[in-house]
């Protein structure tokens, strides 16, 4: 069984990789398997967790469940063309709830806490710790403050990027570009380790070429 499984895994691995050369039947086969099996997987998991788990197992415990079920059934009204428009109700519910939920969540975790953490002294390693920073930290602190400020200027919509404002926005773009370049470079290592894992599997588990 174990051996067979390794062969299957190797077959699928190589099939996906073959896409890098060009689209081909082997890749199409793997893709078809992937789509069919994974769609089935999620369908089953959601069925047991959300339908069976909530309605059969915890029967009647929470009347709220039935509100959800009604909304779900309204969703299925799409299948009946004449009253398909009812399915907009659960959709409207989800949109409203998402909007309300996110509005305040994002506001507290990103606006409030991010703005709060910009309140930082330049010459200290932290708030209330006296003048104790090295040149390294001081430059770093100033860069963070300037970068955040100019970055926000870049995103400002109400003013044309011209004159002094435009120049500040340019500095903002400069910071964003450094950010993007740096995070790109930093991520390379973790992406490579994924490949190392697969190559390790192919040469080690599958071909047995790695002696250790």
């Amino acid at each position: 069984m174990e051996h067979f499984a390794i062969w299957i895994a190797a077959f699928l691995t190589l099939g996906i990789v073959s896409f890098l050369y060009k689209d081909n039947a082997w890749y199409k086969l793997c893709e078809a398997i992937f789509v069919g099996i994974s769609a089935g997987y999620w369908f089953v998991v959601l069925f047991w967790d959300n339908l069976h788990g909530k309605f059969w197992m915890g029967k009647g415990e929470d009347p709220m469940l039935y509100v959800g079920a009604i909304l779900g059934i309204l969703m299925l009204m799409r299948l009946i063309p004449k009253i398909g428009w009812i399915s907009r109700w659960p959709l409207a519910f989800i949109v409203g709830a998402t909007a309300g939920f996110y509005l305040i969540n994002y506001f507290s975790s990103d606006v409030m806490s991010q703005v709060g953490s910009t309140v930082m002294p330049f010459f200290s390693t932290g708030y209330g710790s006296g003048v104790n920073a090295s040149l390294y930290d001081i430059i770093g602190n100033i860069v963070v403050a300037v970068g955040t400020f100019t970055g926000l200027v870049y995103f400002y919509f109400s003013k044309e990027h011209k004159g002094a404002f435009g120049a500040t926005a340019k500095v903002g773009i400069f910071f964003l570009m450094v950010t993007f370049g740096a995070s790109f470079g930093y991520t390379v290592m973790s992406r490579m380790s994924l490949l190392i894992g697969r190559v390790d599997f192919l040469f080690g588990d599958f071909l047995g070429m790695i002696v250790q």
Partner: protein
Amino acid sequence: MKRQIPLFITFFVGTLLIFSVFIPPMETWGENFTLFFDIIAVFAFFLGAGNLVRVHVGKLKKRKADWGFSIVTLIGFGFMLFVGLLKIGNPGGIAADVTAPGSWFQEMFNYVINPLQSTMYALLAFFVASASYRAFRAKNREATILLIAAFVILLGRTPLGMLLTAWIPDSLSFFQIPNMAVWIMNSFNLAGQRAILIGISLGVVAMSLRLILGVERTYLGGDDNG
């Protein structure tokens, strides 16, 4: 009417959830939303799965290009439903968790989905390389900055970065490339991320308000029969 009711639902639910954060007796309403959402999503899944089957059966019937692979998809989907809903080979029988180790369902995950997943994920290593080749070119000032930042960080992640700047005395170790790389991550990167995050959340606030107030109603589709 067909449009008014959904608009009202959006407004009502949205406002309620905003205020629920500030009203302790309503603090669990956000969780209820998640519960509702999960349930609606399962019902919607019937539509999705139905669509999947319809599309592939259609391909099969019309003998469209690659119809053979549609058979594979349909068999795979049906097989997973079969072993998953009946819990075939599950050591704990029908009462056990569907993903119990040893069940056919879970074995399929381990031996088929898992290698496919991780290989697809591993393709990123190749695409990271081809994207760097093409994108990091000094076409203009912004691209040049992007290029330099990426290059310094890449250098800093290899022994090369240290070798190139090893002559710099320890007292000036800041200028050694690996240390510069870290410094860039801690200062420039932090600043950029912060500006982006603040911008995003303000964008979310305005977007949410447009939805709740009904200024934005695209998601409802058209006025008539629907």
